[in-house]
């Protein structure tokens, strides 16, 4: 059993390429290419028209979350300030 092919044997194998003819591109190649480019452009347009909607949605969500968090923090702060007054009054033995 031989280890590898000799140069001559390899060249003999590869000589097959000289008989090959250039294969033409499939029919309607340009038509299909145009259709694909049109589809790509319309997808890009659709994505662009969705962009403002997406931005407005994200901003609204951000505003809602902020409003909720600020409201919650104000209540906590109010409760804390009431507690502080009561603690102060108790320490001076005063009733409010």
């Amino acid at each position, binding site marked *: 059993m031989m280890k590898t092919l000799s140069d001559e044997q390899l060249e003999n*194998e590869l000589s097959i390429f000289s008989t090959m003819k250039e*294969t033409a591109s499939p029919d309607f190649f340009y038509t299909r290419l145009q259709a694909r480019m049109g589809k790509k452009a319309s997808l890009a347009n659709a994505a662009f028209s969705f962009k403002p909607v997406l931005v407005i949605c994200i901003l609204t969500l951000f505003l809602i979350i902020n409003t909720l968090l600020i409201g919650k923090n104000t209540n906590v702060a109010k409760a804390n300030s009431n507690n502080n007054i009561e603690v102060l009054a108790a320490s001076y033995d005063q009733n409010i």
Partner: protein
Amino acid sequence: MNEKELISRLKLAEEAAFKVLVENYQDRVYYSVLNILQNANEAEDTAQETFIQVFESIGSFKEASSLATWIYRIAVRKALEKLRKQKNRQRINSIIPWWMPSEEQSIDAAYLNPGISNENKEKTTLIFKAISELPNNQRIAFTLIRVQGMKHDEASAIMQLSIKAIESLLSRARENLKNKLKNYYNS
């Protein structure tokens, strides 16, 4: 229309110029990527992607090389991307086979060139199978030069490698092919 005029009209995004470009290069680009990918569907898809890329990037074409070399370079890069994706899919498929369906790895029967006689078709399939097992750079260099008959300097411009590097890739590809094809000779 000469090349300079074609390029300037392409830069103005003229559809008629783009049609001329596609008609001039579609066969050569398709044949190149077909030889690299060895699958008719993948080759058509890659050739289309090449022309879309050409249309989108013609503004950045500096004319340092010829238009043909630039188009071939894009085509080869796109074909390499396809090969990398195929290899990644195979890798994922071998790890988690249920994640994606396995792909046909056989050489596309439609690829077999009508210029090849019937008695040579089996041999051609074997040779192309051996070429497909070469590392990507060797595969591209070997295909451009030995299969398509390009000159070393053309392949060097397309692959953006020195002529010495191309010769080295060719020589390694030959050694690998000798090893891979010995089984065919022994049988």
